């Protein structure tokens, strides 16, 4: 049962307070996109063994969605950050790279 710190209210929230929202930093494809693009957006997920970026909502707390970077294998949490961004903060990326030199980036 994970604990993640909500970047909005600062609470170290236990998993029971949180609602999971799957992979973060997906690009939405709407009308006009190709079948492949839409299919990828709708259904294709990375599901890595290792560094992963996820969406979580502090559902039983402040109600805010936030993003978390963690290792799916060891459950190490590299950091959490607000959802209003299209890519992970640079310093978080640097921190992950330092800890996981073989990491190929969030894309």
């Amino acid at each position, binding site marked *: *049962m*994970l*604990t993640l710190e909500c970047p909005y209210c600062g609470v170290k929230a*236990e*998993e029971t307070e949180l*609602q999971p*929202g799957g992979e973060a930093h997906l690009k*939405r*494809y*709407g*009308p*006009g*996109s190709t*079948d492949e693009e*839409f299919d990828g957006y*709708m259904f294709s997920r990375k599901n890595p063994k290792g560094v992963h970026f996820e*969406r979580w*909502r502090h*559902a039983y707390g402040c*109600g*805010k*969605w936030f993003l978390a970077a963690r*290792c799916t294998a*060891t*459950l*190490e*949490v590299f950091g959490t950050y607000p*959802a*209003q961004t299209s890519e992970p903060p640079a310093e978080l990326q640097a921190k992950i790279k330092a*800890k996981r030199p073989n990491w190929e980036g969030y894309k």
Partner: protein
Amino acid sequence: MSTRLSKGGRLIDRSKPMGFTFNGKRMQGYQGDTLASALLGADQMLVGRSFKYHRPRGIVASGAEEPNALVGLGQGGRFEPNQRVTTTELFDGAVTESQNHWPSLDFDVGAVNDKLYKFFPAGFYYKTFMFPRAAWKHVFEPIVRQSAGLGKVPTARDEDRYEYAYGFADLVIVGGGIAGLTAALSAGRKGQRVWLIEQTAHWGGRAPVDGVEIDGKPADEWVRTAVETLEKMENVTLRLRTMASGLYDHGYLLAYERVADHTPGDGRPRHRLWRMRAGHVMTATGAIERPLSFAGNDVPGVMLASAVRDYVANWAVSPGDRTVIVTNNDDAYRTALTLLEAGLAVPAVIDARPEAKGALPEAVRARGVRVLTGHGVAKVKGAKRVTGVSVCMQAGEGAEIETIACDAIAMSGGWSPVVHLWSHCGGKLTWDEDHAMFRPDPTRPATGADGAAMVTAIGSANGMLRAADAVADAHMAAGSEGTAPKAVSAEEAPMSPVWIMPEGAGPALRMKMWLDYQNDVKVSDVQLAAREGYESVEHTKRYTTLGMATDQGKLSNINGLAVLSDALHQAIPATGTTTFRPPYTPISIGAIAGEARGEIFQPLRKTPMHDWHEVHGAHWEPVGQWRRPYCYLRTGEGVHDAVNREIRAIRNSVGLLDASTLGKIIVKGPDAGRFLDMLYTNMMSTLAVGKCRYGLMCTENGFLSDDGVVARLSEDTWLCHTTTGGAERIHGWMEDWLQCEWWDWKVYTANVTEEYAQVAVAGPNARKVLEKLGGMDVSKDAHGFMEWREGTLGGFRARVYRISFSGELSYEIAVPASEGRAFWDALLAAGEEFGVTPYGTEAMHIMRAEKGFIMIGDETDGTVIPQDLNLQWAISKKKTDYLGKRAQERSYMVSPDRWKLVGLETLDGSVIPDGAYAVADGVNANGQRNMQGRVTSTYYSPTLNKGIAMGLVKHGPDRMGEVLDFPVDDGKVIKARIVDPVFYDKDGEKQNV
């Protein structure tokens, strides 16, 4: 026989005798006894029968590892099966009964299985019951049902209460032996917030029994001082009778405290489940002794050597008058010394090692005991009780050299660290060749949120089997604060692994060597599994059921995988262990449920009118966490009659529905219109202030998710109604898009569902009721269909929506929740002259079906798009985008072959069962009848006096008038005609007056 000794017993208080019964027989023990020591003290060695062969079973161990001695404990509302006697404290008046036998413990019919062992080999479930097929139902199953299963299921409601508690600590130390105490002292001195928990009722673990001295004092004395010191530290919390059940992600630890098992009915909660967060966990969980695999090692009277000395030293109980020790290590000699000290006979020590020259064996020899090195046990004599042991050479095939008469056998195959907690969250093990055991690999611990080790194993749980090493290890691991305690114990010579005794035992002997006592898995079973190709230890476990009993293989696992490794000709570490899973020992269902039972099993949501409904015969229907009246029962009235009465009343006069549960979400801001245009399939930004519009919401995958009426309250404010169950979900959905995708849009949302009470006033006389209340002009001209008005109605601040889900003239009126009940009463009074009738959800459902209105959850199931329900009129053609639009453009979403909504009318007027399928000609690839449609809603319509239904049918709207076959139970087929789904008032004249 086993007896109570006249002297000694460090844990019992002879001044406090306690009476109890076993299978109706009166017995007596003392305060401080476990049920096990009390039973043994009363000469009750035989306590149960094994699972498969119904072999007589005695007490083997003295702690959590006990596989055999499970009893039914208590009576009525305090009866619980499968209570392990070795870990259950005796209390005065305890009522116990043995399990798994019929008709009696001494004479058990199921024991015939023992004679039929050839037919119950490994995997017998898979082999024996296969053919002939009918035999399972008529022969095997009835027998298995009668004789299988451990214990009886309680029948009375549990009289005890249980609770959750929450704990937070920098360090949780699991295990209150000398290692745990040492670590707690060091960490406590450092000022850490420390929890030290111990599963038994006593501190100190094994050290006091094993004759350890610490800092020049007997272990008992050192332990007492250590506990006193810790009790004085404010940052240290001590908990006895608390077992760490499981360790999970990020230091989440579940601990099970048996608060009042030993004082039943004293008003305290029986069990407490601690949900803890630990910064770090130290496992000081000790080690468990292994049995030896020799023929007849399951006969009552064969016990672990450590257990024998526990019973003597702790409880002054002698398991036998003459105890033969069988061992492969020096530690078991301590048992001989303890027995001799108590004045009991040790006819011989049978040591499988070629020589035994350590301090402990020499001390035993010095007492005149025969030590037979290089020997083993060929066979145990006796059935329900050991009568002797047949001795052979360990290196041979089991030829008997001599028989030694004895009534107990103390065996030791070495020790295995308790690595469960270490392993629960991913900690890895390493094979220790010297002690033939798996121990925690400190280089591969479970890691926490920061990526660092979350667990440290200390003491014998870390493989430090000698007291001096254990204490030094614990002190260092906990930061070496203060002086390190110095422990002294006798030197021990190396042990020598023995997995089968004797080494060359043939099939006849191997068939009587038990590995798993509870599940009756023998050496021969594991070897058979290996021959049949089971190479993975996990597969072998499932095939043979090794380690799958309630003790989870605490005694059997290592011995079993050693036998498997030998059969597979590979080293033990190559075979590996099975997965260690929580809980460490079983915990009660009551503890897991905690306080969540009865009224507080789940919180209920109640509308402001709830109490009125209750008093007036509400037949409740759960809708999410709400309770809504399904109908209101009058005296002597059935549910069906009540629903029909309610519908007729509305269609002919007027009815009231408590609609407060409908979701109500305010969406406000400069970009609110734009946002709602994305959320709904139709256009909401163009809705005029003062108007209402029915809207549909879809998922990004195109499927219908929710529906409801949207009202535009002001230039920048909309109020969105959702389904009763959908309010929180839809509010969350809105927030998701606003926070994560369109975060630069200026929109606020607020879920105001519970701020308003809402009442539907429906029926031809609805307007008259409102006019009687007075205060607002609700005439057709002043307040048109699909419009809302705000004002004061009968003195209540009200927002009145003219919308209809029943097809009748209808108003839905929202008032502040705090005024809801008063408003409801006012409506009842105003409606009295019209015979106003409160109605429930079922009348609402039927009336909407009569009108052909869809219901989320009935017509939709997560695979239905609006187009399937002929709702194209509610999908904007002008919008370039809305959630679900791209998905609905996919080829299979626009296929003309999709099943579409139609009405269904049975030819005989009956009601089609819900979910019935319409069959088509031919069969599919699996040989099943082809289908062409299904029923989504079906009711008896009191308005039309016949069955009506809606369903999804392939090409349905193009097949009006066609008759479909719906096969139902018993070969019966219901015929139904495809019709327009609007059964009642097709032109909408009733709602438009």
